[in-house]
């Protein structure tokens, strides 16, 4: 079995976000990026699903972060890592086109990716790409088991409800959470991978004309507009007193 995992580099929300000079994007100068946390869960689930003879292929767009994401994936146990080069992409629609080119060449049985990312303004990668490729897709998945050419998955709904589906492979799954906390790769192991293994490259061509919509503005919600700020503990204790909870 061949399992592909799509990885995306996204802004780290721990950092303060600022709008760029045009007002239509993020100011990326001081911005830190990291692997999309849901993609980390997708990778973990792939590694848990894979048996000894199965392949786990990590895929990422070239550019900033790709080496770190892909060597880390190898250090965690992925069998291959492919970097997509040759063209940049815009938005989910662009990413979907790029990834579908390499996935069509690789013909995988299962494609896992994070359920969503913090910047997927024009749709979620998994179900969008699946539809373009004519593959079935289930998103918001937190349990997967495989039996032959079928996957049995749990999709989460609101209020703690879940639905069980059976999906014919090849299929795409948007992972909400792996069944275990994503494993940690020590820096020494990642360094070792950088020295002993190589990233494969796949050249993508035209990734389309974009999402059909244009970003016309970025703005920060007015911070703290609603909340009355409290600066000392006595005031907070008084408030709780006033609410009748102490």
């Amino acid at each position: 079995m061949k399992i592909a995992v799509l990885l995306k580099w996204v802004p780290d929300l721990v950092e303060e976000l600022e709008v760029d000079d045009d007002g239509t994007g993020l100011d990326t100068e001081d911005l830190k990026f990291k692997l999309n946390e849901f993609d980390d869960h997708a990778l973990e689930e792939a590694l848990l699903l894979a048996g000894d003879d199965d392949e786990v292929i990590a895929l990422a767009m070239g550019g900033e972060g790709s080496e770190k994401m892909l060597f880390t994936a190898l250090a965690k146990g992925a069998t291959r890592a492919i970097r997509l080069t040759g063209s940049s992409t815009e938005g989910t629609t662009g990413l979907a086109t790029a990834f579908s080119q390499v996935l069509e060449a690789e013909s995988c049985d299962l494609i896992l990716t994070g359920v969503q990312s913090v910047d997927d303004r024009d749709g979620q990668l998994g179900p969008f790409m699946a539809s373009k490729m004519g593959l079935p897709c289930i998103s918001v998945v937190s349990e997967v088991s495989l039996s032959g050419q079928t996957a049995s998955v749990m999709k989460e709904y609101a209020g703690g409800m879940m639905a069980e589906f059976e999906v014919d492979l090849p299929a795409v799954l948007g992972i909400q959470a792996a069944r275990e906390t994503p494993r940690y790769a020590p820096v020494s192991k990642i360094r070792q991978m950088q020295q002993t293994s190589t990233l494969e490259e796949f050249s993508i061509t035209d990734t389309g004309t974009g999402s059909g919509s244009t970003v016309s503005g970025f703005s920060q919600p007015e911070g703290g507009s609603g909340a009355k700020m409290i600066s000392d503990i006595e005031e907070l204790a008084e408030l709780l007193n006033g609410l009748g909870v102490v």
Partner: protein
Amino acid sequence: MAGTLVVCEHLAGKFSDITFEMLDLANSLGTGEINALTFGSMAENAGELGIANKVISASCSNDFNPETYSAATVAAIESTSPDLILIASTSMGYDLANPVAASLDLPLVAYCTGIQNNGEDFVCTSSLYGGKMNVSSKVSGPVVAMVLSGTHDADSGRREGAPSMSEIAAPATDGKIRFKRLIEPEPGDVDITQSEILIAVGRGIGSKDDIEVAEELAELLNADIACSRPLVDAGWMEKSRQVGKSGFKVKPKLYITLGISGAPEHIEGMKDSATIIAINSDENAPIFDVAHYGVVEDLFEVCEELIEELE
């Protein structure tokens, strides 16, 4: 303007609140006729969809299936040619909006909190980056917009009426996805939807052991502990304690957040609490937009001092 198609979400035999929120939004836009698409036997409840001019009922199972529901939605779009298609930004919506937009080659705007109709085009506002940025997109119809729960008024979208009815057959699919069963949540030791006071811990708590400080405070306030999604994923808290999109919707008298930044997925589950006190060290955290009171400080310092003060 060729009108709006509202794709009505339901679960366990009832229209979800987001369905009425989308009807409220559609009603405010003035894009002409509003058609509502329902699935399976939900058309029997069409009387609740009074804002719609017409209800289109897709004859298919009541159980959501990405393939059949997408195919039915595509058929409804083809037969009514709407300018705006509203689909919920929910678990079901993800597997509906994306395939519909992809197969009809329509632009898709996700995580919408508001839509403006400019006559010639739409401006959709999306809440991105964990609620830390509002991003507006200009787009001409037809467009698929995914609407976030909790952004519009479900009560004003719920109106009795007698929309005209029509039926469409859900086109045949290749059956690669099969619905098996719906699973109710396992009851936890505490039903947080019934709690009067909740202390909700988020990622800012840092480690499983540190939840202790929240528990200590909870004991003093006679509160129950709730949490945001990341703590469940990390295995630190039970799913039955999770507030938000894939967890529970709560409305306690008092909701205190510790180290929760306030991603839209969480806010959707707690914003109707009577009083919200947010404690977070990041003054720009979106949680302060919904909180009534805020404390910008290290949560451990606040908790320790408060515990001391209360004791």
